[in-house]
């Protein structure tokens, strides 16, 4: 036991384990495992036929970490920076990865990006639809209730926050739009009723 020199014994012997579990011990030798040794030079380069790869053309100014000495020879081209979120993210890339500002600005850029796209989508034939895009239909087709009731699920305590995270900003935006429209209507009515600037 713990308070004496020897380790607590294992209930099953290696032979018993080998009988019960197919493949028990086939990777027993720690030196004969695929990730060992670490940091050993690999002669074959896994199929690469270059020492430094040819460079991918940079068709627009590609943002990069200031901790890189150069733009990497290959990079993703999905969703280039654009709009206000693009400006925020571009600013974020002025800070090194060790700086909190780098990551917090990227998170801010993510939220602004979402709103930019939500608003843009309202001008299209396919506006964002929080009902279909959250997939909540699955609650009715994939046993939403049965998957929760009577289970020992600790995540149920905070799952109630998910609709708030998804719907909260939409409700807040609708509320702000309503309050703004109402105050504008009131101020227009006030201006119209004092007789100086009639409103037609």
């Amino acid at each position, binding site marked *: 036991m713990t308070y004496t020199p020897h380790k607590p014994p294992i209930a099953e012997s290696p032979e018993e384990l080998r009988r019960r579990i197919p493949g028990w011990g086939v*990777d027993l030798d720690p030196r004969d495992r695929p990730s060992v040794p*670490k940091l050993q030079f690999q002669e074959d380069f896994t199929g690469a036929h270059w020492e430094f790869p040819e460079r991918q053309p940079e068709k627009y100014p590609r943002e*990069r970490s200031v901790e890189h000495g150069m733009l990497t020879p290959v990079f*993703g081209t999905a969703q280039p920076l654009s709009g206000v*979120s693009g400006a925020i993210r571009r600013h974020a890339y002025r800070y090194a990865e060790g700086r909190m500002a780098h990551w917090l600005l990227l998170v801010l850029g993510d939220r602004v990006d979402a709103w930019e796209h939500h608003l843009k989508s309202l001008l299209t034939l396919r506006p964002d639809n929080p009902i279909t895009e959250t997939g909540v239909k699955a609650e009715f087709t994939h046993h939403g209730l049965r998957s929760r009731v009577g289970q020992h699920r600790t995540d149920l305590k905070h799952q109630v*926050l998910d609709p708030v*995270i998804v719907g909260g900003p939409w409700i807040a935006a609708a509320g702000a739009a309503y309050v703004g429209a109402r105050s504008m209507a009131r101020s227009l009515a006030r201006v119209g009723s004092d007789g100086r600037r009639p409103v037609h």
Partner: protein
Amino acid sequence: MRAMAYRGPYKVRVEEKQRPRIEHPNDAIVRVQLAAICGSDLHLYHGLMPDTRIGHTFGHEFIGVVDEVGSSVQDLRVGDRVMVPFNVFCGTCWYCARGLYSNCHNVNPNATAVGGIYGYSHTTGGYDGGQAEFVRVPFADVGPSRIPDWMADEDAVLLTDMTATGYFGAQLGDIVQGDVVLVFGAGPVGLVAARSAWLMGAGRVIVIDHLDHRLEKARTFAHAETYNFTEYGDIVLEMKKATDWLGADVAIDCVGAEADGDFVQHVTSAKLKLQGGSPVALNWAIDSVRKGATISVMGAYGPLFSAVKFGDAMNKGLTFHTNQCPVKRQWPRLFEHVRNGYLKPSELVTHRVPLEDIAEGYHVFSAKLDGCIKPLVVPTAA
């Protein structure tokens, strides 16, 4: 082409997008036949990963058929059926030359702390992923492998991340014969890590989670002892009792950023995004192991700080081994294990979701409905 597109936290849809183009002479375009949703995709889906852009296509587990190759591609041919590791890697940078493909320095301009990953935000390079009909695969001569004739598609797709990562996680535990191994999280990676621990000679394997259907799978697939932490006042204390007060020799964290078990830790990280991830499982691992033990971290965390109990880790003399899995390095041995029946990843598949229903697929996986363990995605044209 049809592709999944991120529309903000908890929202995805299928959109018509441009088919990807050859951007580099060693690119290939792969027509996806089968993809998967990974637990780490949920971190993106929940808005936890910085620089996840609207319109981004997720998906780093996929297999398919080569549809087009760039001018310098020598090995692959149009029509080849390939499995693609989740790592984008060049094969020859300082890291790749030493087998650390997941740390490749030539593919991710956005960050130096992480390599390139398909469909995993711009923080990992800005590559659209495989939950789509087509995907761009850089360094086609380096990453993809032809799928062996004898291998089932569902096994192949799950070797591109989940199986390799679980197996790698067990290796990073430096398990020796007779070790007591604790696995936190009975998701797909945890289940494979638990099963792999036996291959490395573990004497006991204990899996901890709060979902009964996953713990049941831990018993049948991974032959493990299981503990539902909600049934105990203090799971750390329970692990001390279960190990005759010594603590486990090895712990493997297969939970990561959205760990449950502590309301404040979970909400401040997964909901309010004030931490890089909820360190509940990691802290339980630190507290549950014996002094001088090894902790392998396979759970994914974000780049911000997390409230990890590092003082206890130091005082106990713990060794931490961490990394994203260099998938291709695992494949030759894993192919043997699959062929010999020691690992059968497709046994973990619970749902097959048409690409057009991807929003429901994400919701089922995220809300843990319907006994979901591993959902696959079947593209429209497959």
